[in-house]
């Protein structure tokens, strides 16, 4: 089964399902849904040869809103499900989506190891620096002095997690940042990410209008990423730290060894049986 472009080109809306999103009005996740479908249409990916895997959270609702194969699993384990799928079915195009809580807190270990393993898939984290679905608690990317959560009335007091730096440090071969308020650039980034052979990590700044209304200001704060895309990881690390976290663009792209299964199919089950025979 190879990915053959369909005869009649599909439009972005052909990749959308009939299901109406549960998201709040103005939620950044809507634009990410659009950008994903546009990227799929741009690449003319076969719908049935594409799978979108997610965990739990507002963001993780994404698969059902698209018209590709989807798996909406449990909180934090999307990358594990996706890695198993890709290992068993290397012919599929595998996308993974979720929130900052899902990916960096409960799923943090899988994030590191998925970057290291560098399997050929694209991981989109819809980062709103908050747990939306559970009604507004701090996530790993929340600033330490954010006091609006009942759970951490004094703020977390814990420095926030730097997703791009971690992805780079743990071995992701494509690292980019996008913004839901700039769907055109985001679509381009996603196209590049999907085409990249290896683990592509795209952090998408995506305002939570309900629990972080101040994020409406993000549209004034985001800017083009201050560094050039590089394949030099030390340079990329430097650029990430200079940039400050609101820069949009490709940060790092390089060729790393990609983990792929190596089945040989040289034996029958009966050969294995005979291995135990006296």
């Amino acid at each position: 089964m190879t990915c053959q472009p369909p005869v009649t080109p599909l439009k972005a809306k052909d990749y959308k399902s009939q299901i109406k999103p549960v998201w709040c009005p103005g939620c950044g996740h809507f634009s990410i849904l659009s950008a994903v479908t546009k990227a799929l249409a741009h690449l003319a990916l076969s719908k049935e040869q594409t799978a979108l895997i997610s965990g739990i959270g507002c963001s993780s609702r994404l698969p059902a809103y698209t018209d590709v194969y989807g798996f909406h699993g449990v909180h934090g384990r999307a990358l594990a499900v996706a890695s198993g799928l890709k290992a068993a079915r290397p012919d599929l195009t595998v996308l993974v989506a979720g929130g900052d809580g899902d990916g960096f807190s409960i799923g943090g270990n899988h994030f590191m190891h998925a970057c290291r393993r560098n399997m050929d898939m694209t991981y989109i984290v819809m980062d709103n620096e908050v747990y939306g679905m559970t009604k507004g608690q701090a996530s790993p990317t929340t600033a330490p002095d954010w006091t609006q959560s009942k759970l951490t009335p004094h703020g977390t007091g814990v420095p926030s997690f730097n997703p791009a730096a971690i992805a780079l440090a743990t071995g992701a071969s494509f690292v980019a940042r996008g913004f839901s308020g700039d769907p055109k650039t985001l679509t381009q980034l996603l196209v590049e990410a999907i085409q990249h052979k290896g683990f592509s990590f795209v952090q998408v700044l995506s305002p939570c209008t309900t629990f972080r209304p101040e994020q409406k200001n993000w549209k004034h704060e985001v800017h083009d990423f201050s560094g050039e895309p590089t394949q030099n990881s030390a340079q990329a690390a430097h650029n990430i730290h200079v940039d400050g976290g609101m820069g949009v663009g490709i940060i790092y792209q390089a060729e790393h060894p990609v983990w792929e299964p190596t089945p040989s199919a040289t034996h029958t089950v009966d050969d294995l049986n005979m291995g135990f025979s006296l």
Partner: protein
Amino acid sequence: MNSMHTSQTKTYSVAIIGSGGSGVVTTGQIMLKAIANAGFYGLMSRSSGPQIRGGESAAMLRIGKDPVTCLDDRFDILMAFDWLNSDRFNDEIPLGPNSTIIRDPDAGDIPQELLDSGAAVIDAPLTALSKEIKQGRVNMAGLGFISDLMGIPKEAIQGAVEDTLRRKGPEVTQAAQSCIEAGYHATKTDSTIEKLPAIDNPNPRWNISGNEASGLGAVRGGVRFVAAYPITPASEILEWLAPNLEKVGGSLLQAEDELASVNMIIGGSFGGVPSLTATSGPGLSLMMEGLGLAVTSETPIVVSNVMRGGPSTGIPTKSEQSDLNIALYGFHGDAPHLVLGALDIQDCCFTTQWAVQLTEELQTVAIVLSDQSQGQARAVIDPPPEATAAGVRITAPADSEDYLRYSVTDSGVSPMAIPGTPGGIYTADGLEHNPKGTPSSMAGDHQVQLDKRLRKIVDYNYQDDWAVTRGEGENVIVTWGSSSGASFEAAERLTANGHPTKAVALRLLAPLQIDRLLAQLNGAKRIVVVEQNHSAQFFQYLHANQVLPGEARSLARPGPLPIRPSDIVTFMMEDF
């Protein structure tokens, strides 16, 4: 105490002990191969101290003309290469007046406790013999010595040595064979050790460990994707699968933890490839949320759980049947699934294969319980039979109209579209859903989907494979897993001594086959439920399902000591 041995099941039990580096396990493995070469069946279980490498260890063998599935009450022979820390094995290696201890005079005195058993002693100058030979090893001299005493043909033992040591090069093999020769022909004082009879035209047999058998069963069932996180005593399943899965076109992925491994196999199976992982108690605990996801999303997966002493890190290197409760009840919500128990080493293959077939057919989860005592033990067995359930996943054809992934069917099984199938696109979900798969919190959808997920596994006909029953009688032993071998033997001994006894060993633990079990218990005067755990988990489970009369008794004992046939016989007789 009356252990009531029947003569037609004459077997020979040998224990070999020694401290780290003395080569106990290799010696046992070669001996098992040798008796196999001579036409016998046998079982070798092993025990070791807590050291990672190089601690004292014991190889415990039982040899017979018929298949052997449990250790005996006593050992006929104990051969020690030294006595350092030998007291660790006093409970595991019971001796009696008919036993013989083979000891090397150069290795010190036999501990008094062992002499108190009344066992005879034979001196074997193993250190002296091996010193004569370049690169000579005490264990190989011992192997020659004991082989002569037991009447194991020399060609059988030399062939086994050759086979085992070949990869270490001709020098090592040559040295070992010379030591064996020396031990074999050394002068020996008179002994009461019974010689093995000669076997003509032996059956075709296999030499396999329980964990290898589980791995093979997985492959036979069609598993082609495995995710793995190492854990004692399950790792050998994964290590056997790693190279062998590839050979048949599958793959294995090492996961970062068990949260990952269970979700990885869910991903693989969602992709249409039958998938399995293996673990032990701590890993199974971590997998529970993922298992619930597989139940709800109806993604078939198998977890092979090789039990060790629990809870927590417990006793990693020793056996216990104490994960029944978590396997049955560990899920949150109402999550019908299959729980199976492998009855012995050979059955690890059958039960795992059957579990894969059932999960594929029923799109559900199976937990297969094995344990250290069979997983890490090795046996010479008849080739394992094939499980024969259909084992085929019902998939959705291409271009089905208005495809509904979780459509409500009579059987409860709905065709599953495999990614790549045009017209089958859906999103699998762990959220409760409607037949299309769209998340739903409606009472009606919940009821219908709960019913369907239960119906598909309780209405299925598991045929005769649900249990193995041996013997007939008014006394009934009900058991499961690795306690089965001792239970069958106890039933045989009781019957031979005028107390007709039947043993029923359940292979399918959930869904409990209540009517079938009740039929087996019909007319029973005495019922004893045998299991190796502290809280009588199986006994309580049977009671909760109202299959046991009030008088039924429980023989439940925690690991790591195996339950021996005489333990069961004695317990049963208390009630006569």
